[in-house]
């Protein structure tokens, strides 16, 4: 290595130290329970898996969020409400028809919703500031929650996807007692993974996907070659609605369809920010990090707090994601895979 290059890489490393520090801190937090003997290897893996499964669901919601942000620059606060709305619609309609039909009907509903949003909100507000559009989506989110309740009620409803509920135990000969794996979670994670794969194929391999990427890259240029922005927005919101529907189905079958679903789904916000807002892989990795991080914090950090400081140590799962993202933003404001903004002055 030439001396100049060596110096460069040292400088780079020195600039990166906060990132390295944070990564080391996270790794230490992750391995501490295992090292200190607070958890057996089997239990450690169980918590890890549980976190990954929850993370996949966060990723799914964050994905819808990133899609809309990429294509239209709108910070869509309503993504969580869309999840609730889609799940609620499916759950209540399934009472009167076969589930498959209810899912299709809910999908059509979400596409109609996308069309309405473009007509009534995005088109009149074109060229308004980001804050205005954010407020508009906040309004959409409150409206959706209220409208959903008005039409379908606010009890807890069930969606029965027929997923296997009984957990299975694997790796008995590897660890003492084996590892408990929820089959339901496993199916959910596969569905999410398949969806992510489908979406990236759609974006990479089809003409419409190409047009979507073009709009995300440069509005003006896209318009000048005849890509119709309005149609693209409808498509993006419809795809985000589809993603919300899938997330709502999986989540609803796991936890039941209830109002709190939209709050849980809001965790997609820190996930998307962590991933970098414009990056689809970022949404996925971000979801996994936050899923695992918060499970570990809930189980082990809670234990540690109770053990050493005699605190209750509960409820960590509620806020941990936000603190984690705050830490990340301090050292890497553009998120994991976000575009770094270098402005010429």
């Amino acid at each position, binding site marked *: 290595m030439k001396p100049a290059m060596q110096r460069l890489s040292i400088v780079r490393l020195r600039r990166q130290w906060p990132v390295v520090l944070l990564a080391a801190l996270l790794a230490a937090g992750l391995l501490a329970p295992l090292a200190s003997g607070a958890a057996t290897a089997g239990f450690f893996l169980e918590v890890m898996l549980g976190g990954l499964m929850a993370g996949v669901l966060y990723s799914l919601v964050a994905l819808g969020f990133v899609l809309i942000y990429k294509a239209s620059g709108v910070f869509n606060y309503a993504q969580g409400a869309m999840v609730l709305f889609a799940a609620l619609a499916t759950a209540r309609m399934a009472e009167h028809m076969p589930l498959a039909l209810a899912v299709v009907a809910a999908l059509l509903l979400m596409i109609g919703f996308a069309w309405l949003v473009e007509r009534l909100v995005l088109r009149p507000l074109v060229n308004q500031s980001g804050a205005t559009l954010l407020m508009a989506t906040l309004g959409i989110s409150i409206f959706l929650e209220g409208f959903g309740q008005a039409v379908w009620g606010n009890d807890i409803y069930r969606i029965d996807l027929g997923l296997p509920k009984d957990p299975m135990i694997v790796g008995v000969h590897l660890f003492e007692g084996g590892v408990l794996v929820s089959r339901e979670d496993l199916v959910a994670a596969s569905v999410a993974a398949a969806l992510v794969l489908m979406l990236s194929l759609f974006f990479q391999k089809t*003409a*419409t996907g*190409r047009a979507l990427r*073009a709009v995300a*890259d440069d509005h003006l240029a896209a318009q*000048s*070659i005849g890509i119709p*922005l309005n149609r693209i927005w409808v498509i993006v919101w419809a795809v985000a609605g589809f993603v919300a529907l899938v997330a709502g189905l999986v989540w609803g079958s796991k936890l039941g369809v209830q109002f709190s679903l939209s709050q849980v789904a809001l965790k997609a916000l820190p996930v998307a920010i962590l991933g970098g807002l414009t990056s689809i892989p970022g949404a996925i990795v971000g979801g996994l990090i936050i899923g695992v991080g918060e499970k570990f914090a809930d189980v082990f950090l809670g234990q540690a707090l109770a053990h050493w400081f005699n605190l209750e140590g509960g409820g960590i799962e509620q806020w941990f994601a936000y603190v984690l993202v705050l830490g990340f933003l301090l050292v890497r404001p553009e998120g994991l895979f976000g575009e770094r903004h270098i402005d010429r002055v």
Partner: protein
Amino acid sequence: MTFGGIKALVDVSFDVLEHEIRAIIGPNGAGKSSLLNLINGVYAPLAGTISYLGQARTRMHPHEAARLGIARTFQSLALFKGMSVLDNIMTGRTLRMRSGLLAQALYLGPAVREEIENRKRVEAIIEFLEIQAYRRQPVGSLPYGLQKRVDLARALALEPRLLLLDEPMAGMNLEEKQDMCRFVLDVNEEFGTTLVLIEHDMGVVMDISDRVVVLDYGRKIGDGTPDQVRASQEVINAYLGIAH
């Protein structure tokens, strides 16, 4: 038209004939790019009309312009930087794609055939502009001169009747300029495309254009063949300044 009270273009009127190469020249801030933006619908004029193919309108919209066969390149490149050269040019074919979203998503026969058909057209353009070697590279990683060429390729993918070029040769070295000149002339001759171009290099302008419009401070101060324009006292004054 005006920008926040500043009149950017006043009483500018000029025509472009089918199949000609029309240059717009003028000092910095003369309103050249604004003029292109009006034709292509990025800006809306406060007064006046734009007549195209016998139809007069008070304003144009960008996607409408594209549908009518008006394509353009940009002074400060507006390519899709994260996408490959091929994908960039393929976006230029969006208007020619008829198959539905579902057909594309499911990879049905007609959608695939359409994609292949359009890909063939794009390959012809890639060959024409001699950028075969860079097909798969992300545009953002290419040198400036090549990016300009991709910008032109994307505009050509629309198969335009009227092509607006905003400083196609700015920032290029001599060799790149010569290549670009050749491409511009070939486009005009082989495809019969009408061209309107903004250019600062006087040598280039005089060589390749049929007629020239000269703007200064948002007003038209000259219009005619290169020779006529070069001889005009007013144009000389605008470029060289007048002794007071």
